[in-house]
């Protein structure tokens, strides 16, 4: 698994995942589940926090308080076929206005990277090293897009009528 952020491979990643049973390290940065975030929020730990969403989590039900408490949201793809994460990322960016890191984790492969970036993912735990190395190629295969997306890529319609 190789982490790609802002188009480059990061050899070091400060973030660690901590499951619901393990105590949260004091100095972070640590990623916890949404349930745990909600539990911990009133007495939140001092260190940097991130939250990991599972596909069944309702991204529209996340509050502004919860989002302000985290500087990273990890969105899970248990299998590449499970496309719920794309809607979660869009909701975070467009509905909730979240501007922090959205990281794709799980079964993240070369051919999904372009769509992921368009819907608002800014970091990718890519399953295969070779795919991570080709990241720039993966996200640049198409010069245009038909649909408006949070990444601000100009759409066909905007380009056609920008006179």
């Amino acid at each position: 698994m190789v982490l790609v952020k802002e188009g480059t491979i990061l050899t070091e990643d400060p973030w660690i995942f901590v499951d619901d049973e393990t105590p949260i390290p004091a100095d972070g940065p640590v990623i916890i589940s949404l349930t745990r975030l909600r539990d911990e929020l009133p007495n939140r730990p001092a260190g940097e926090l991130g939250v990991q969403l599972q596909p069944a989590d309702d991204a529209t039900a996340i509050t502004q308080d919860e989002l302000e408490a985290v500087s990273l949201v990890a969105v899970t793809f248990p299998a590449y076929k499970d496309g719920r994460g794309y809607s979660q990322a869009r909701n975070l960016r467009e509905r909730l206005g979240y501007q922090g890191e959205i990281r794709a984790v799980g079964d993240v492969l070369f051919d999904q990277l372009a769509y992921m970036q368009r819907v608002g993912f800014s970091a990718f735990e890519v399953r295969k090293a070779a795919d991570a190395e080709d990241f720039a190629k993966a996200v640049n295969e198409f010069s245009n897009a038909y649909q408006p997306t949070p990444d601000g890529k100009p759409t066909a319609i905007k380009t056609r009528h920008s006179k």
Partner: protein
Amino acid sequence: MYQYDSIDAAMVQERADQFRGQVARRFEGRVTEEEFRPLRLMNGLYLQLHAYMLRVAVPYGTLNADQMRTQAHIARQYDKGYAHFTTRQNIQYNWPDLDHTPDILDDLAKVEMHAIQTSGNCIRNITTDPYAGATGEEIEDPRIASELMRQWSTFHPEFSYLPRKFKIAITGAENDRAAIKFHDIGIEIVRGGPDNEIGYRIYAGGGQGRTPVIAKVMSEWVAREDLISFLEAILRVYNQHGRRDNLYKARIKITVNEMGVDNFRAAVLNEFELIQGGMFTVDQREWDRIAAYFTPPAFEDLNDAQEQAALEEDMAKDVFFARWVRANTVQHGTDGYSIAVISLKPIGGIPGDATADQMDVVADLSEKYSLSDVRVTHEQNLVLPHVRKRDLKAVYDVLADNALNTPNLGQVTDIICCPGLDYCNLANARSIPVSQMVSERFADLEKAHDIGELKIKISGCINACGHHHVGHIGILGVDKKGVEYYQITLGGDASEKAAIGERLGPAFGYDEVTDAIETIVTTYLDQRTSRDEQFNACVKRVGLTPFKEALYGTR
């Protein structure tokens, strides 16, 4: 018809290049077959019983002469010299080699065609009325909205990994020739809203397959500017709530049923309210740009009475031509013109197939006599939408020379049939040979004409690609302990009268099913009040009992 601008052309060529890269990585082993599968499916490439099968998109069933010629070329160059037209207005090739498919996509791109999203858990081809732009019945040409939706759905980053495939159909006429109520989203163009303007009645949750369901209304009227926003809302609710644990319960019809229609609708309206007025609002300039490609062609100013008189003179001289005109031509919206349907159901033939030579003939005919316009119907026939009545005889003569003149539109031998056990690895039973036997049983054209409209649809398994649930007579092939049996249903209807066929009784063996169909037809002829009472109306009036008695005897 729509013509690509440089953006559309780049999109399709870049997709072909991307696929070439994916195939290369597959051959290099950088991508496993399991990982390659969704990628090739999103380019319409299935792995079937004997070979790969490539499904080429025919957006809203419309082609021009050059595009049809390219299909003939592909059939010759890369396949065994024929192609199959499908129940979603697409084209299938049964024998391409994997390493040729990037070349096929390149050839398609040259004529503004592709195989994008014709398979996979994404939004599929938008289908519509094959008579769009020719019929006098429509309030708006549905192909304008279809093209808008085609672009919106192509490479949609959020909705390319849905729980399951997603099919959208739209009709511009009340006479629904697109079966919209049996689609995941069905759209009817209607007048409404505060100013009685053209807008869209939107249905969701229809489908066939293992569990046929008639779609439910989500909104009686959506304004044009809100059309895409409304679709986004439906797709987002489905993407988030559709089942991911069970492949057979993953279509939106199940989601609607499990959530309850009212809850589902409420979720959609809630989401729509948040999206409405935002980035998916239809830009009127873009609408106008697309609409300009669908303005009526420069029809000649003809006197219909004169044209009709001349046509009837031609008909009087040739009984075969006359029969074909009566059966296979449909009234056009413009005086002096006709919609001509080319049957791909020759008696005893394979339904929906055409040879490369036949495709070239159709291309030439469309260029010479139909303003270079040809359509594919979801009943697996072709249409020349704009033929002058005075040209019908010339068209017919060419069709007759090429075994394309079977006068059976909508009749008992105009059978819709899936590829079945002969081609498809999902099938339980053969379907094509059954359609051939039934077709031959009713080969008598006069008798078939007398029977009238009778739509038989055959599926080789419960996935229902032959649409048997909506056949007036539906035939479903099943496997019982390794032996093929055929269940028969009556009274299905794909039109705006939407109905799901009812099962008659125990299934029939392969050697019995043709007799069973003949018994049903004979019973209809006995029961009908007159030639004017068509099959489905008769079934509705008399019920299933006379048919059950005829088939199984009184108990």
